[in-house]
């Protein structure tokens, strides 16, 4: 097992190297105000049999979990994904990977909607096979907490006496996101957890122990710097390899990065977005994203604002509806760039086997008038007063959900939609090293494969202000209330049968009258003849 632990100092001015203490087999931090990334690399032999058997069925597997609680990102950990559990997966040729879903359920929770990769996962469209850097299929599930994973690690991976292992697993409870990566080429399982701040809310005071000589633990304490090249991220700070270095080694480095924070002299950048539904949502909820217009300036001419939506199967988007330019511009949308997954326009939720769908939308931005003139020229702003907001609307539709027996909310079922990821996608120049040299590079997020390889993402963070501090919107879905539907069954049958009876009676009357008329007529005719 190899470990790399990186602390990113929130405010480099407040940091003093004396807060770090290096010993022979340990590294101690004292009250360091920072974000933290902990990266563990396991070789396959270190894994339990159960995991190994599943990984053998995978060509690559990338699991991403993101918290529902808003968190502040810090370079280089700025990339964003919708909160919840994502899996990006490519199977070995011809392998159905039948063990994957059972394992996901076992590790992350029994209530995961996952039958098999073939039934439940959705394909990821790729720009071109040649440049494809993303997995073949994708899975998603709302998952508020990693409780199940923590229990799994504590029971299956930690030995019962290993308290360090138990508490390390428990610390995942406060992680902002967790990445788990495996691919056949590296033949290693990489676990990568990120904490936006210390679980206690303030600073990190902890000791990292080197427990076996064979282990490698590398600790970095870094501060973000201004990079010379706009496409680079630069850092300075201290690196320590526990057991090798006797004191923190000062360092300064930069690298081209795929993911960037919004460029602004001071952080945090004032541009954020808020997602919400307008009420009543009905069966056609419209998701709105609002931005403060004045800060909605593109980082570069080549950039376009995008949102990447993860839609659980209860909700869907109508790609045909979103093909009309007039409608798109009235919603402040530029285009629907990509949609994949469960896009059937008619199917009720219970016949959809896939987890849902994923869509990439390009958003319209107010015409690039200087901020001072925004009030006059910004036709798209929906806000009132001086603080203009730019609102975009995304029309969604609800599937029919199963009838409900619930008595607490009769006739209503709740479904959830995670906030989408929002970013500027910009063209990167050809010069310089590829982005993958970035030691903190993060790929397999679902959307980066929908762009060319030379694309940079400037991420717009969600605003923590609105809602109950959760980056998940809930929608009340009207369903058939089974408590009141008792009479429906026999009622319908009785009414239909009565209807049939009435019509048949009318027909019998017609036939009978006609028959009698004919008989009487003939009799009369015969009588006439006789006369």
């Amino acid at each position, binding site marked *: 097992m190899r470990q790399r632990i990186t602390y990113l100092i929130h405010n480099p001015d407040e940091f003093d190297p004396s807060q770090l203490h290096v010993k022979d087999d340990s590294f101690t931090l004292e009250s360091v105000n920072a974000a933290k990334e902990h990266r563990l690399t396991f070789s396959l032999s270190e894994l339990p049999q159960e995991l190994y058997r599943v990984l053998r069925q995978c060509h690559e597997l990338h699991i991403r979990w993101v918290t529902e609680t808003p968190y502040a990102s810090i370079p280089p950990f700025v990339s964003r994904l919708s909160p919840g559990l994502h899996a990006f997966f490519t199977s070995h040729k011809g392998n159905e990977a039948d063990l994957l879903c059972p394992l996901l359920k076992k590790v992350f929770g029994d209530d995961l909607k996952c039958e098999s990769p073939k039934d439940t996962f959705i394909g990821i469209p790729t720009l071109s096979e040649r440049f494809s850097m993303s997995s073949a299929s994708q899975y998603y599930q709302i998952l508020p907490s990693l409780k199940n994973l923590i229990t799994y690690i504590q029971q299956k991976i930690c030995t019962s006496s290993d308290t360090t292992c138990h508490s390390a697993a428990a610390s995942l409870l406060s992680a902002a996101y967790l990445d788990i990566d495996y691919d056949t080429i590296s033949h290693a399982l990489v676990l990568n957890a990120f904490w936006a701040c210390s679980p206690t809310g303030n600073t990190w005071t902890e000791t990292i122990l080197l427990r076996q000589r064979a282990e490698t633990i590398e600790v970095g304490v870094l501060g973000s710097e201004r990079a010379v090249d706009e496409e680079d991220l630069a850092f300075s700070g201290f690196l320590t390899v526990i057991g090798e270095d006797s004191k923190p080694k000062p360092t300064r480095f930069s690298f081209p990065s795929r993911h960037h924070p919004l460029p602004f002299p001071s952080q945090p950048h004032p541009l954020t977005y808020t997602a919400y539904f307008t009420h*009543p949502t009905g069966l056609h909820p419209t998701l709105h994203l609002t931005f403060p217009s004045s800060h909605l300036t593109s980082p570069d001419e080549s950039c376009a604002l995008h949102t990447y939506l993860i839609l659980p199967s209860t909700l869907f988007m109508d790609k045909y509806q979103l093909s009309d330019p007039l409608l798109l511009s009235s919603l402040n949308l530029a285009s629907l760039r990509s949609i994949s997954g469960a896009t059937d326009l008619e199917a009720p939720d219970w016949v959809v086997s896939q987890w849902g769908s994923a869509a990439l939308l390009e958003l319209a931005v107010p015409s690039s008038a200087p901020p001072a003139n925004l009030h006059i020229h910004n036709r798209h702003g929906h806000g009132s007063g001086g603080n203009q907001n730019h609102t975009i609307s995304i029309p969604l539709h609800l599937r029919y959900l199963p009838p409900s027996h619930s008595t607490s909310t009769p*006739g209503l079922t709740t479904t959830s939609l995670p906030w989408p990821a929002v970013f500027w996608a910009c063209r990167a120049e050809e010069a310089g090293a590829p982005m993958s040299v970035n030691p903190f590079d993060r790929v397999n997020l679902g959307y980066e494969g929908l762009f060319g390889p030379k694309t940079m993402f400037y991420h717009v963070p969600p605003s923590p202000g609105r809602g109950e501090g959760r980056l998940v919107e809930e929608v009340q879905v009207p369903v058939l209330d089974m408590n009141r539907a008792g009479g429906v069954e026999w009622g319908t049958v009785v009414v239909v049968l009565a209807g049939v009876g009435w019509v048949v009676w*009318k027909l019998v009357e*017609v036939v009978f009258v006609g028959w009698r008329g004919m008989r009487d007529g003939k009799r009369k005719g015969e009588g006439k003849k006789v006369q």
Partner: protein
Amino acid sequence: MVQLFSSPCYVFSAAAILRAVLLIYGSFQDAFSPLKYTDIDYYVFTDATRFISRGLSPYTRDTYRYTPLLAWFIYPTTWQGWWFSFGKIMFAIGDIVAGWLIFLILRSSGKMATDRALKFSSIWLLNPMVAQISTRGSSEGLLGVIVSALLWAVLTKRVRLAGFLLGFAVHFKIYPFIYAASIIWWLEDDKLPSKKNSSPARSKSLTQLALGFINPARVTLAVYSLVTFMALNTTMYYFSYRYGYPFIQHSYLHHVTRVDHRHNFSPYNTLLYMNSSPTGHSSVKLESWAFFPQLFLSTVAIPLALAKKDLPSTMLAQTFAFVTFNKVCTSQYFLWYIMFLPFYLPKSTLLRDKSTGVTASILWVLCQLLWLHQGYRLEFLGISTFVPGLWAASILFFLVNIWILGIIIEDTGNLGDPALRKVTVD
């Protein structure tokens, strides 16, 4: 108003102008408003046509559930600019042709004076609902022209043409197969000029009756319709390997297997929603038996009891029963029977007895409004109105329809039968 009905010229010009105005208005609304005048179905057709023009199957377009012929028929919509409206124009022209055929039938078979025939044809020709549906680009109007041509061909004894049209109509939209029963039953020997002096029915044995049933006209109709239907299907199936199975699946099987859970006017709707879902299990296997009352009434009982009295009214009753008892019912389906109203209304209780007529139409509209209100509360306000609201409204609407169907049957029963009429005259 009287002036309008004095000449076919006026009425047909008015019908054409009405549609032209709607077409032009529609293209303006489409061009300037995100809220489209054009029906979603029309985008489905034109998308499918575009796929065809690129050498792909029309079924590449989701929810395209029609014969490939329809997509081919509006092929010019793939050309740029105004050609997009080509299909709508064809549908509108189809509407007017259907109106013309209705007028012809009323004049010839109904022996009506021109102005009266025009008045009744206007139920179709000047009906804003009809004109709107076709100019919005729904293909239901096209069906109007096929079915009215079928009726015209039958009534004017063009049996081979009728057979062809029947086969074509069924290929186009399945439901016209119900007319086969009534037309066959109606085509008895004495309806045909050549066999006027057949022996009286009384002297025939059962075998003779059975043999007598098989007359040349019936055989011709059956053969022509079947051959047309099968030829079209085979062509569509083999025309290109791409259409193959999807054609069968989307044009035909879909209608058998579909469980249309989204709310609609059908009385079965709530029960189907309940039955098809995993949680709302129900003991009644409705999907399997819902076809029985519908098919029994529209293809057996009604044709047998009524077809020999008056064919157009019988077809109205059949269509009315078919739509009323259908598992799915939306307002476009009403167009299917509106087409037959001009033939039935002149002799109906609904017109003769003002209070019945007014009550029937008020109830028919009222129940729909009631349903629409519940539908609005569900769809846009998110209130769970499935029970009792929507269910009760659809049941009420069903009952009103049944009552009206009863009146139509009664009226049709009192018509026609020449023997009976002679007796009453005596």
